[in-house]
């Protein structure tokens, strides 16, 4: 199918950095997930997506198969995790995460057995399933957005919507320098991607499908066009101009449909939904083949002799794939992601997770240390480069001065942290670092505030409950006293004159209550016969009565000997 002529739209700003994409696309995708290549130990973090941390459902020492679920999604905004190969769970413990903090998180450590034995995989019939069943199935297959945000896909792939959506956009733009995992995936597995896209279209009921690919990937475009032609569905491959960050979801939607998703809205509010190409493949594997998400394509690039893409099992230590690319000796840092948005890794033992699209090795030669930060001169270059149409310089002033309220007024949270502003800044200000600082500070404060509000509510309710209980108790007592008094009055009207003074009425009420209680207790004592005494022989009964008599005697002796006049 040929792409019809169609007009594309444009987004503001953006930059054109050096792409460095050729080196890692010369070789085909290397397979590090083959049985012989599987490392002896996999460290699978439980928390790999946005949302709640999955709960481990395996025990230490348990045998697991490839694709077996080891962590159950915690709530709806969460996604399951699976064993990437067969083996034994050797520990469930805190291990260092591929996260800039270098902190640890709960991981399932798998000692692999080399057999790479799959669970019984069964395709899922989405046509017979209800929307809720599809959502639950994808959640339990651990399918998340593989473009980098790892947002649980089942929340976006909503079949409930009346009349379907207008446009389904598949994001194959991959705009960040060095990263080529989506490019290679489209070149080599275009047919499976297209099968996934067709599945997504059926679930979402999308009227049109656009697969957006940047024009610097001619091989991927050709492969996808062939695959689209073969599938028989009217999907369209759209070639978009190469400019960073054309692969941002909002930017790609703008380029393809012309829709600008405003502040506070999501693309679905405009009948558009956007997914990454690797996510489409994961959906095909989950629904079409019944396989959960246990591996992904990772680019290794930068300061290595042989940059390449690998199909890597989730949980593989990154040093294992780096070693396959012969890193150069002057490597001094490891970055997960690309040079624009990537974050530095605390060490090379951290595992590959679902968010790992690229491992970039840095040296002072490739990425020289940043020049010293100089004062902002308000030149406005950052505002011209910002693809989200923000005012980065204002955000910078407010974040730097910790005036977070104003930063939010200038829509700090619409910043996609693409790094264009830092890239163009003539004063070398690490602008994105300031925004990240301000964002995490605001999140922490909001969380603290909501916890404080909750504590206040609970405290106030407790006080209210104490007062209410006290009132209810006194009301109950008063009602009982009144009832008792009335009963006594009825019983004694004929014989005794009721004393009229309030004090004596109260005393009488109390006395009556006590007397009534004693009478009730006596009555109960008389009527109650222990249940175990019904079928006893005469001998046993005699023994019991003897014991009772002895008890009565002792009780009599124990009584204080009061003077007779007391």
């Amino acid at each position, binding site marked *: 199918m040929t792409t019809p002529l169609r007009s594309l739209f444009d987004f503001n700003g953006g930059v054109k950095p050096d792409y460095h994409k050729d080196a890692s696309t010369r070789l085909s995708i290397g397979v590090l997930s083959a049985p012989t290549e599987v490392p002896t130990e996999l460290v699978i973090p439980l*928390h790999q997506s946005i949302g709640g941390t999955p709960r481990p459902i395996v025990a230490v020492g348990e045998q697991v198969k490839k694709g077996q679920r080891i962590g159950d999604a915690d709530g709806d905004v969460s996604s399951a995790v699976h064993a990437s190969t067969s083996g034994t769970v050797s520990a469930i413990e805190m291990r260092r995460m591929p996260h800039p903090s270098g902190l640890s998180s709960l991981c399932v450590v798998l000692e692999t057995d080399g057999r790479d034995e799959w669970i019984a995989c069964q395709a899922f019939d989405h046509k017979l399933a209800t929307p809720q069943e599809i959502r639950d199935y994808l959640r339990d297959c651990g399918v998340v957005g593989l473009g980098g945000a790892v947002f649980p896909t089942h929340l976006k792939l909503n079949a409930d919507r009346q009349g379907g959506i207008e446009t389904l956009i598949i994001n194959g733009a991959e705009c960040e320098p060095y990263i080529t995992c989506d490019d290679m995936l489209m070149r080599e597995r275009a047919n499976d991607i297209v099968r996934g896209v067709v599945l997504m279209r059926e679930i979402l009921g999308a009227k049109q499908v656009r697969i957006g690919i940047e024009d610097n990937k001619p091989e991927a475009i050709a492969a996808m066009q062939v695959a689209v032609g073969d599938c028989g569905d009217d999907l369209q491959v759209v070639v978009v101009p190469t400019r960073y960050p054309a692969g941002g979801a909002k930017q790609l939607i703008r380029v393809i449909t012309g829709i600008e998703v405003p502040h506070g809205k999501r693309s679905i509010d405009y009948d558009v939904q956007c997914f990454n190409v690797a996510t489409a493949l994961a959906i095909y594997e989950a629904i079409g083949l019944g396989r959960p998400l246990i591996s992904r394509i990772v680019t290794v690039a930068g300061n290595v002799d042989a940059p390449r893409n690998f199909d890597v099992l989730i949980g593989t230590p990154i040093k294992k794939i780096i070693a396959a690319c012969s890193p150069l000796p002057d490597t001094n840092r490891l970055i997960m992601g690309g040079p624009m948005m990537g974050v530095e890794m605390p060490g090379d033992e951290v595992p590959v997770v679902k968010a790992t699209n690229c491992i970039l090795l840095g040296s002072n030669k490739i990425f020289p240390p940043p020049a010293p930060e100089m004062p902002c001169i308000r030149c406005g270059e950052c505002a011209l480069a910002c693809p989200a149409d923000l005012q980065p310089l204002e955000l910078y002033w407010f974040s730097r001065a910790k005036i977070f309220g104003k930063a939010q007024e200038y829509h700090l949270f619409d910043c996609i942290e693409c790094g264009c502003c830092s890239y163009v800044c003539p004063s070398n200000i690490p602008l994105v670092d300031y925004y990240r600082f301000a964002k995490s500070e605001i999140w922490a404060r909001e969380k603290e505030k909501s916890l404080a509000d909750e504590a206040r509510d609970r*405290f106030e309710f407790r006080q209210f409950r104490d007062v209410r209980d006290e009132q209810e108790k006194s009301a109950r007592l008063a009602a009982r006293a009144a009832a008792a008094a009335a009963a006594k009055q009825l019983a004694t009207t004929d014989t005794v004159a009721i004393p009229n003074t309030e004090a004596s009425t109260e005393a009488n009420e109390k006395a009556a209550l006590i007397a009534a209680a004693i009478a009730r207790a006596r009555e109960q004592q008389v009527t109650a016969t222990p249940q175990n005494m019904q079928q006893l022989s005469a001998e046993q009964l005699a023994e019991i009565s003897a014991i009772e008599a002895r008890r009565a005697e002792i009780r009599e002796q124990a009584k204080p000997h009061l003077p007779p006049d007391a």
Partner: protein
Amino acid sequence: MFEAILVMSVGAIVLGAALGYAAVKFRVEGDPLVEKIDAILPQTQCGQCSFPGCKPYAQAIARGEAEINQCPPGGEDGIRKLADLLGREFKPLSAEHGIEKPKAVAVIDEQTCIGCTLCIQACPVDAIVGAAKQMHTIIAEQCTGCELCLPPCPVDCITMETLHETVETWKWKYPVVTLHPAANLQ
């Protein structure tokens, strides 16, 4: 002369009536200042300020009966916010009311707990679950770290555990400008 007095009095009566009506019609329920102060206080309800809860302390501050530096959980940050709100001078935290500690939650040693319910009665925010002669436990997310459950426990089975930073609660640090030695200029 008489006219002038009349005009002024009529004016005074009209304006007084308008103000009186407005005072009844647009009456503000409660003290908005107390609400603002209460919003800054950390709601631990620990009583370290010598008032029975955060709201009473907020009321006392609003009446001018309490200093702004009596809240150890709010810390220096909280004192600064109160000083800003009330236009008072910043004061360091008063030592007699306690010291600022990192946030902690209470943890019950379930092996030792005898199920006496004394801690449940002491908890100001109902964060302890349990019943008489049943094991008690603390809902960590709802514990404010007030330490009020520690003294009543007859078997001392409650300890305070400091909350450590996790990947989820980690915050990006303020960008620090690294200083380099100046180039050796000729």
